[in-house]
């Protein structure tokens, strides 16, 4: 596993050019907002799980911002990880993501997964061969540092889906 900070390794020769990552796990969420912390939670788990996988890069952010398009463009496969307020609490979904150049989030400085894919293509002419979204239905996104019962119960399944998707991307 290669953490995002590695792209800033002082020993690297090409600081603004990202190394090719076979698989990028891009998580989103706020750990102070209950189930919204699911993305960072799964990212932390994945860092341990893929510690010995140099082809896996993991980035966790509170918001997905446009500059992440460079990381997306540099990946063969991207697994976006986020909670969903539109699905049943604790439900686990693995969905394909297609680029979309117009989304509600584009009015400000953060983007959703389809927007990031579109921006990566527009700026870098690159599109990952595989782009999937792992979404877990949120039970609560109120202030709080713990996951709701449905989401906590769904964690083992979500981890399993995440690992299976990454292994498939890697051809393991």
């Amino acid at each position: 596993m290669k953490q995002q900070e590695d792209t800033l390794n002082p020993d690297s020769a090409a600081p603004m050019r990202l190394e090719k990552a076979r698989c990028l796990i891009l998580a989103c969420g706020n750990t102070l907002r209950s189930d919204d912390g699911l993305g960072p939670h799964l990212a932390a788990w994945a860092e341990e799980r893929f510690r010995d996988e140099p082809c896996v890069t993991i980035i966790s952010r509170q918001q997905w911002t446009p500059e992440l398009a460079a990381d997306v463009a540099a990946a063969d496969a991207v697994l976006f990880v986020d909670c969903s307020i539109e699905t049943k609490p604790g439900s686990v979904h693995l969905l394909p993501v297609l680029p979309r150049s117009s989304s509600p989030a584009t009015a400000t400085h953060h983007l959703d997964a389809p927007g990031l894919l579109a921006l990566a293509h527009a700026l870098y002419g690159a599109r990952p061969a595989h782009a999937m979204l792992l979404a877990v239905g949120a039970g609560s996104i109120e202030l709080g540092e713990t996951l709701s019962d449905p989401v906590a119960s769904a964690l083992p399944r979500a981890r399993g889906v995440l690992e299976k998707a990454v292994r498939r991307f890697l051809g393991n």
Partner: protein
Amino acid sequence: MSQTITIDPVTRLEGHGKITIQLNGQGEVDSAHFHVTQVRGFERFSEGRPFYEMPSLMARVCGICPVSHLLASAKACEAIMSVRIPHTAAQLRRVLNLAQMVQSHALSFFYLSSPDLLLGMEADPKVRHILGVAAAKPELGLAGVGLRRFGQSIIELLGSKRIHPGWVVPGGVTEPLSAGKRDKILSMLPEAYAGIQLALDAYKKIADNFRPEIEVFANFPSNYLGLINEEDESIAFTDGALRLVDAKGAIIEDGITASRFTEVIGEAVEPYSYTKFAYYKPLGYPGGCYRVGPLARLNIVKRMGAPKAEKEFVEFKQLAAGPVESSFHYHHARLIEILFGLEKIEEILADPKILDTHVRATAGVNRLEGAGQAEAPRGVLHHHYKVDDDGKMVWSNLVIATGQNNHAMDSGVLQAARHYVKDGKFTDGMLNRIEAVVRTFDPCLSCSTHALGQMPLAVSLVSADGEVLDRVAR
């Protein structure tokens, strides 16, 4: 019957707010206000905390300019400690603050305002965003992404985090700079220079297309406040003292240090906004109101203090005989400041002393009151603290750039509304222009109210008898 237009929420801002435009019985604009509709109260919940926690607490005010809050807060703490920080620590802080300015200005110009500038004020709102810019002008989209990554990378290299780095502490910084990190930053500069030069060239080519907007985008005389290096009257972001000039560019007051700030600057309150309205006390409110930020900084200094930025500054000053008045020119000033930031970072890192390991001074409570100030990307930021004998916070006050621009934003919205709203009606293009006036200032509404949560902006059109005739919310 009079009417009111409300723009609710104003989009592409840092935070949420709304605009209300009041019409008279003839359908003409009578008044207009920019409202900030959130409240937070950082000053209150800091009470009782140890003063040395304040930099990391106050940095949470904002996710865009936490470094400015870190610096103003640390300086206020150092006034309480009565220490002078080591030279290398001061230089490293300057690099950090400049890096933040570069990434914040890149966000403002490329992500939030370039859709208007490159695609047009009347462009379809469905494409008037960063993705639209990337499709139409990918080279400028790349420049924007590159400059934002440049600034964020430096913040992360120095502070170990892109947002809310804990590296700045009362007394200096926690760790010295390694040669590897210095070389890493220096190696990123050529690409950053190329990006800002591309943006400056592109902006100067299209600026003339916006002459009608330049005329009515908060284009009026005002006072201007900002930090300068007192030695050579050049631009300063982290140290120096404040200078206030009048509408003709004449110095009203110089050498306003952090400890003197509250002697000369007051804060007024209006019933329609949680953001306060700062003013220069001797001139009263609202006559003593002033503008801060990139336009103000370029209006108060005599020189930039870096050769490439100096060349651009000289060209910028050709826009007017005295101070450059239209807030539309904030965009241009912002790009020049990015160039300055790159040059200054390069200059500071070229000094071998930057690797010195003595980067922190220590002391306890030696005074019961202290103040600190720095330039945030949006303008002057002031922190003022009082502590008890044990160093626990008993009082604090934060004066934020957006509050200092509040009166000018209000007046700018009124000026634009009077120009664009005809017969009590407005089109999407007109609405976007009124929003764009506010965007020129790059206000941070989270900072200005020390506010919580998301903040969309709305525009309401209200009749003379209070009836909401039209309302647009995004």
